[in-house]
């Protein structure tokens, strides 16, 4: 390669890649680059978490970390394509905006404080029991209802079927009726 051949703009003008979007834009450094997908230990089959089209995703994992998410070309739904949101799902799942620790705000408090997960779960269980009792109704106008209006739940449209099933099952057994999700909205 002569010195001038190493100039992308020269190759762009000389060869067929007039817009510099292919071979003309390559350098030795970019020639040596390999996609993250190549070095992955495994590919896990998944589904895009945004809208309800249900595009197939291939999740690339290396050293127990998700390193790339691509559209699944096998999917008859999406044929390998992802939209801007689906394409950003690596950032959704591994980006810095995700909180990884429990946060707790005491009544009338002015800041978050840390709380360990086990303590939080125990406190939440106590509060469910108390709110359930406070809002309990055996009857309304003489008709049995066997329910509580003491606590409510909103959410499920972004969750798995199995998760919705457990939420409905547990909260119904506790007597809650105000169980809702985005499908109402």
């Amino acid at each position: 390669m002569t010195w001038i051949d190493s100039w992308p703009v020269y190759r762009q003008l000389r060869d067929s890649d007039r817009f510099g979007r292919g071979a003309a834009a390559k350098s030795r450094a970019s020639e040596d680059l390999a996609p993250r997908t190549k070095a992955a230990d495994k590919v896990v089959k998944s589904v895009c978490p945004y809208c309800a089209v249900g595009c197939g995703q291939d999740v690339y994992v290396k050293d127990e970390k998700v390193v790339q998410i691509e559209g699944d070309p096998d999917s008859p739904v999406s044929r390998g394509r992802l939209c801007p949101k689906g394409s950003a799902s690596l950032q959704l799942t591994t980006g810095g905006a995700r909180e990884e620790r429990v946060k707790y705000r005491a009544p009338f408090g002015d800041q978050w404080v840390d709380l360990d997960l086990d303590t939080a779960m125990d406190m939440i269980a106590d509060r469910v029991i108390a709110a359930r009792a406070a809002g309990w109704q055996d009857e309304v106008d003489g008709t049995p209802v066997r329910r509580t209006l003491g606590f409510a739940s909103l959410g499920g449209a972004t969750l798995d079927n199995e998760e919705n099933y457990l939420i409905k099952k547990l909260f119904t057994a506790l007597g809650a009726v105000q169980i809702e999700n985005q499908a109402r909205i």
Partner: protein
Amino acid sequence: MAECHPVGFQWVMEAKARGATVIHIDPRFTRTSAVADAHVPLRAGSDIAFLGGLINYVLESGKYFKDYVLAYTNAATIVTEDFADAGDDGLFSGFDPDHRTYDVRAWQYEGTEVQAASGERDELYDDRARMEQVRAAGRGEAHGSGGAHVEPAPSDPTLAHPRCVFQILKRHFARYTPEMVERVCGIPRSDFRGIAEAITANSGRDRTTVFVYSVGWTQHTVGVQYIRTASILQSLLGNIGRPGGGILALRGHASIQGSTDIPTLFDLLPGYIPMPHAHSNENLNAFVAAEGTDKGYWAELRSYLVSLLKSWWGPAATAENDYCFDYLPRLTGSHSTYETVMAQIAGDCRGYFLLGENPAVGSANARLQRRGLASLDWLVVRDFSLIESATFWKDGPEISTGEMRTEDIGTEVFFLPAAAHTEKSGSFTNTQRLLQWHHEAVEPPGDARSELWFTYHLGRRVREKLAGSADDRDRPLHDLTWDYPVSGSHDEPSAEAVLAEINGRDGSGAPVKSYTQLRDDGSTSCGCWIYAGVYADGVNQAARRTPGKEQDWVAPAWGWAWPANRRILYNRASADPSGRPWSSRKAYVWWDASRGGWTGHDIPDFAVDKPPDYVPDDDATGAAALSGTDAFIMQADGKAWLYAPAGLLDGPLPAHYEPQDSPVPNLLHSQQRNPVRQVAPFAHPDNRLQPSAAEPGSEVFGYVATTYRLTEHHTAGGMSRWLPYLAELQPSFFCEISPELAAERGLEHLGWATIATARNVIEARVLVTRRLRPLTVDGKVIHQVGLPYHWGPNGRSTGDAANELAAVSLDPNVHIQEVKAFACDIRPGRRPAGPARLALVRDYQRRAGITERTGMEP
């Protein structure tokens, strides 16, 4: 569709490449319009008038698909003499103005009472449950006219009887003329005629037309009737149950279909079984008699429900205790998310779980939502980031206006980080009813956990804490089957074990293959009857991934669609009454006489060995009572309903009513708004309604606002506003307005606008664009203001929430809020901050003469 479901839209483009005509009907010009054959803007909130106009055209021109209509719809059925159509006054028979309800008995078929396959099925509980008691007591004489509900209603196949559905339809839609469509919707007559001709030319034996919609049709005070209008049109044109036909709902969340099927919804149990309402002396038999049908697959309700109760309460559910039917809590009216907010404000609802939802900006009247959150004892927020619903106590808008002070808010808040879809296994149900399994790739980091983990371990802890209780109310908890295998470092429950429970088991404990195996004697279990078969043969059918290229165009070996892996519902209607395809071009499922069975490209949605000429015995019930041409197998009469004698609260036919807040008078009826819309329960100083049309003060809110999504963001932004890539693509909230509106109100491109309703004022960057066009409505120019609703103050891409402006005014059937059309004002400049913001809202209310009674009348 190209904006909000871009990857799905590739199939529209494939169809277009093969010759399909694509017509886009939307107030705004979008990426869909850019590639459509025609874009027809209409006024937000006027779709019933538009679709009603199409129905009128189809009926007047005789271009309906007569053979299909006669065979598969209720066109010939005779309706009760008590029915009176909504005439000039816009009210159907049976209206009770004091209670703002209809007596739906005034809409029934003649001499019989049919039950709806979906929707409100508790309306005639007392009648129907009483009949069951009468029947059980053997007192046939007490049946009266209602007792004949096992017998079919009379019909007139000539369609000439003045009270047959077809004639009622013709009279009802006669007022929806092209001139009226032009006046109400702002669609010129010539454009309307072009659409009408295109869809009728493209429907019939050889061709089918599909309607695709989203929440632009549902988020109205008359939203269910929007869908009904499309159903009537598509049934008349023969476009249901056939390839390339249908009315396709494009849903907006990965498993919002699944969370409707396995409902985290107050009014349903899994598989669209209604939640029981409170009734005296209610037992399992009375419930099944009242809510089920006598004919079709809903006649098997008892099998579905007993199998569900066996899944939940296992050996504790016995024939002697009605399979624990009384363990189910009872409803008294609506307990929707909006009633829940009012219950929070009233102090009745003290604790709240938010599981991937952000109502502080994502639900209608965001201020009212935050008022609810601030009234709680405790709140659990499970999400990826610190969404507005988690931080309202320190930086919500009410803190800056002075309405709330952090130190006064007693809500205890637990923020628990959630696991991502890559960190858990489970199934999503997509918008085509297709279940697709996603596999765990890595374990969730830190304290992040799945909802499966959270719910299972919360339940385990609550059960342990109450283990010693002898209180009767705790028995459903003690008896609950709650023993899922766990694995991994976090003790993650097995999602596949839950899926197996959802699928159900036969008497031997083996997974059932189909809902037809379910029994009402307690020998089978099934957590969601329509999902029976998803774990057939002990195999996770939702995880099947035979590549699309290795399959035919129906791709039956990718995932699993409910029910029974059928890809098109009611596909018996893709063949003519004799079982032959309507045309070779549209062949899908047909009767193979040589094999004595139904066959085709899809799993037949019909008893596979029931011949087309099958006539049931007079005393047959359930699935056996369906004839060989009863294609609509879930319906009590086996027919597609052009007229809905049951199941709806606001009329057996759609009528155009204006939105709750509208600058336009109702030109079709003197009744301005849906008379039974839900507004009274939401009377609150934060939820003031506006004068409409000719009422004094309506001129203050002279524009029509509509909300929508952008390609680059997702609903209330919890999964998109925090992502740098997406925040860069759409960095802040904006409004879209036409150059004409910009000139009228002195608004500058890239400048600021303040948008106001009786609820709140917000600010937005101004995008002046020809994508929104002024429309001429009844001779008057109407401007629309486009508001993408993704924003809130937190995250990387920020802005005011459009939902600050919306009122809580609901559709009476499904309790969905009207955010797709409401009157507003728009003015140049930023909104005031601090207490002055509230003062501006009060000033708008004063100028419009708004009181607590405004907009509340029936």
